[in-house]
C-alpha cells in the first residue's frame, strides 16, 4: 500500500554484513567484532546515514557453520544497548517464535521499547533449524504449519500482553492508597494448541502501546502484522506480493553489493564468493553502482512503502549508501 511519502529505508546490521565472507573485508579483525564499540559504531553510522530502521538478525545457532563458524551477541541485547545511544533510528531485533517463551519475549520487547523511547520493533522469525530444538531439548517443529502456528500464537500473546496494562494503570491514588487500578489490568487468558498464558504482563504498556511487528510475507495472519517483508526476485513480483499483503506497510528485501572505492561491485563480490559463496536467494539483489540502486529503489517506491537492505559488507557498503544513496532516495516516480 505505497503512499506518496518517500521510501522507508531499513538496514540489517548483523555481523560484518550479509555476505558470509564479509569479515574478510571488514575494517577490523574478527576478534573485534563482538564488542560494544563495534555494535555502537555501526548503528551510529546507520543513524547518521538517515536510515529509518536498523534490524538485528539472530538465532540460538551460530551465524555460520563449518570453517567460518562465527559468534554473535544476542539481538535483543544489541538493540537495547544501542537504544539510548541513538535518538531517531528505530531498532528491531529478530526474535524467534518457535521455542521461545512468549511471556519472556513480551517482557523483553516492551522493555526495549521503554529504553528506545518508543522506537522499537520486532522482526518475527521462526527456527526451522533442528539444532535450535536440540539446544533447548525440545521436539523439533519443522513443518510449515507448525512453524506458522507457533508464530501466530506467540505474536498473539505478545500483542495481548502489551495491551494487558492500560496506559494509565499505575494510578498512584494517594487518597485510597492504591498504586494500581486493577480494573485497568487484564488477564490475557490465552489458550492455544500447545500452551496457555495467563497474564497480565509484568512490564507496563510500552510507550508505543504496540511495538511495530515486521514479518515475512505469509508467515502470519495479516492482522497481526504492521510491516510485511517481501522476498521476491523482481520488482514486478514484489509489486504483486505487496498488493496481496493486507498489512499497513510492505517492505521489500534487497541485497546490495555496491561499487566502492575498494573496487567495483562485481569484483568485490567475486573476491568474497571465492572465499565463501553467497547463494542468490529468491530476493532482489543489486550488484553495481549507487546510481543504479537509486533507480531500483525509485522503481520499488511505486509498489512498496520501504525496503530493507542487506548489504554485503557493512564497512564498505554502508558509507557508500550514506553518501550516494540515502540522500537521493526515493520518492515514487521521481
Amino acid at each position, binding site marked *: 500500500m505505497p503512499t506518496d511519502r518517500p521510501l522507508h529505508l531499513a538496514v540489517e546490521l548483523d555481523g560484518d554484513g550479509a555476505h558470509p565472507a564479509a*569479515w574478510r*573485508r*571488514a575494517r577490523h*579483525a*574478527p*576478534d573485534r*567484532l*563482538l*564488542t*560494544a564499540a563495534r*555494535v*555502537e559504531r555501526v548503528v551510529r553510522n546507520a543513524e547518521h546515514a538517515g536510515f529509518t530502521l536498523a534490524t538485528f538478525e539472530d538465532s*540460538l*545457532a*551460530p*551465524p555460520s557453520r563449518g*570453517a*567460518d*563458524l562465527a*559468534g554473535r*551477541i*544476542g539481538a*535483543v*541485547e*544489541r538493540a*537495547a*544497548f544501542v537504544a*539510548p*545511544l541513538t535518538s531517531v533510528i528505530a531498532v528491531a531485533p529478530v526474535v524467534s517464535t518457535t521455542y*521461545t*517463551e512468549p*511471556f*519472556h519475549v513480551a*517482557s*523483553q520487547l*516492551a*522493555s526495549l521499547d*521503554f*529504553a528506545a*523511547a518508543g522506537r522499537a520493533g520486532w522482526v518475527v522469525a521462526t527456527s526451522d533449524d533442528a*539444532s535450535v530444538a*536440540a*539446544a*533447548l531439548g525440545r521436539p523439533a517443529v519443522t513443518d510449515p504449519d507448525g512453524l506458522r502456528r507457533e508464530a501466530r500464537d506467540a505474536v498473539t500473546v505478545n500483542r495481548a500482553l502489551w495491551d494487558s496494562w492500560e496506559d494509565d*494503570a*499505575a494510578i*498512584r491514588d494517594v487518597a485510597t*492508597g492504591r*498504586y*494500581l487500578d*486493577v480494573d485497568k*489490568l487484564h488477564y490475557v487468558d490465552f489458550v492455544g494448541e*500447545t*500452551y*496457555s498464558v*495467563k*497474564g497480565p504482563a*509484568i*512490564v*507496563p504498556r510500552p510507550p508505543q502501546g504496540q511495538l511495530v511487528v515486521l514479518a515475512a510475507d505469509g508467515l502470519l495472519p495479516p492482522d497481526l502484522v504492521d510491516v510485511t517483508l517481501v522476498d521476491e526476485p523482481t520488482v514486478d513480483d514484489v509489486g504483486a506480493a505487496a498488493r496481496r499483503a493486507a498489512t499497513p506497510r510492505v517492505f521489500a528485501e534487497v541485497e546490495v553489493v555496491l561499487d566502492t572505492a575498494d573496487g567495483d561491485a562485481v569484483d568485490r563480490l567475486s573476491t568474497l564468493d571465492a572465499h565463501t559463496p553467497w547463494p542468490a536467494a529468491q530476493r532482489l539483489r543489486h550488484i553495481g553502482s549507487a546510481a543504479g540502486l537509486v533507480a531500483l529503489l525509485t522503481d520499488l517506491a511505486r509498489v512498496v512503502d520501504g525496503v530493507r537492505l542487506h548489504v554485503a559488507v557493512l564497512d564498505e557498503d554502508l558509507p557508500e549508501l550514506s553518501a550516494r544513496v540515502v540522500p537521493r532516495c526515493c520518492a515514487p516516480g521521481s
Partner: protein
Amino acid sequence: MSTVSDDVPYPDATLHLGVFFQGVNHWTIWTQPESGSQIDFTSFRRMITTAERGLFDAFFLGEGLRLREAGGRIHDLDIAGRPDAITQLAALTGLTSRIGLVATQNTTYNEPADLARRLSSLDVLSGGRAGWNVVTTDNAWTGENFRRGGFLDHADRYVRAEQFLHVARAMWDAWDDDAVATSAEAASWSRPGGVVPVRARTSQFAVDVTPVLPRSEQGHPVIFQAGDSAAGRDFAARNAEVIFSAHGGDFDDALAFATDIRSRLRAVGRPADDIRILPGTSIVLGDTESEAEEKRRWITSEQVTGATALNIASQIWGIDLTDRDPDGPLPEEAPVVAERTGAMGSRRWDDQVALVQRWRDVAAEQKLSLRETAAALEPQRGHTGTPASLADRFARFVRHGAVDGFNVSPIFTPDGLDDIVDRLVPELQERGVYPTEYRGTTLREHLGLRDPLTRRG
C-alpha cells in the same frame, strides 16, 4: 584493652555496595512528590549514574514472573511493573563504564541455552560487568505464564538450578581463549576445534548447543544467589560467588549467617573467603541520631500503611483480614495454615503458627496495634543513623566478617541513593573502609573474586 588484631579479625576489609533498584514491593514510597517513575528509562539512568559516582560495585534488578495477587485479585497497594532485567541492563551498559550489572533470573522457567546466551551477551557487551542472581521460584501459579506450566516439584528446585548452572558454565567455557582469528587474513573466522559444542543429558535437561559467544573479560558472569533455606545455602556454598542475603540488620544475626556460610564453604572444599555476602538493606540518614530515627518512623508509617498492614496480616494468618481495623488489636482467630501459592511473591512464611505467636508476643509486650506490630516486625528495618555513626557501624560489620557489604534498596526512585553517595560514602572512605576508585573494570575485579569456579588451575 585487647589488641586490635584480637578484636578485629579482618582489619583491612573494605565494604562493597550494590544498589537494588526495586520494582515490586511495599518499601519503595510512591506517594510523595519526589517519588518518580518506576518504569521510565530516565529513572534507571539516574539511579545507576549516581551509583557509579559512588563507586558502587553493582546495580541490581529483581524479577517476578507474575503480577502479585492477594486474595485472588491483583495486589494494588504497591509499586509494580518493571522492565526485563537483562534487556534493561544491556540498555544501561553504554551509559556506564564500571558498575556491575546484575540480573535476577529464574532457573525454573528458563532454558540454559537461551539464558546463558543472554547473560553472555550482557557480559560481552559490558566488558565483563554482568552478574546473575540465580533464583528458583517454582510455583505453578507463576508457571501459568509459561509453556510448561508448573512442572517442577518444589523439592527439585535446586536440583534443576544446579544442573542449569552446569550447562551455563559449560557454555561459557566452550570457546578457547584464542578461538577467534586476530586477522582478516586468517584461514577461518574461528580456529577449527576452537569452539567445543556442549552436550548435556541430566534429569532436567537434554542440551546440544554450539555456543555463539566467547568469554568476557571477567571469564563468566558473577553468580549471585538469594535463597535462604538450608538447600539454598548449600547451593550457594557449591555455586555462588555472592549471596544477596536477608541477614544484615542485626550484627549477631549477620555474623551467624556469615559463619554458617563459611563453614558450608569449607565443607565443599572452597576457601572460606570465596563468597561475598551482601545483605539487602535500606539506609536512612539524618544529621543527628534523633532526626534519623524520626525520618525512619515517618518512612515506616508510609511503607506500612493500614491497608498494607492488613494485607501482610492476611498473608500470615491465611485469612482475609482486609476489613479489620489496622489501628485495632490483632485478630483473635488462629491462623489457617494454607499451602503457599507464591502469589505474593518470593516472600515466604514457612511457619505461620510460630509467626502469629511472635506477632502476639510483640504486640502484647509493646502494647501495639496491628499496624504498629506489622511495622515493628518489618524484615527491612535496615540501618538508621548519621553518616558518621553508620560508617562506624558498617566498618565494624565488615571488619568482623559479618558482611562484605550491602545491597542497598533506596526508598525513593530515582533519587533515593543521592544522600548515601554524597554523605555516607565519604565517611566510609575517611575510615579507610571504602575504595576511592574502582579497582578494575570488571564486576569480578570490583568484588575481589577469584576466577570462575570452572576456570581455576
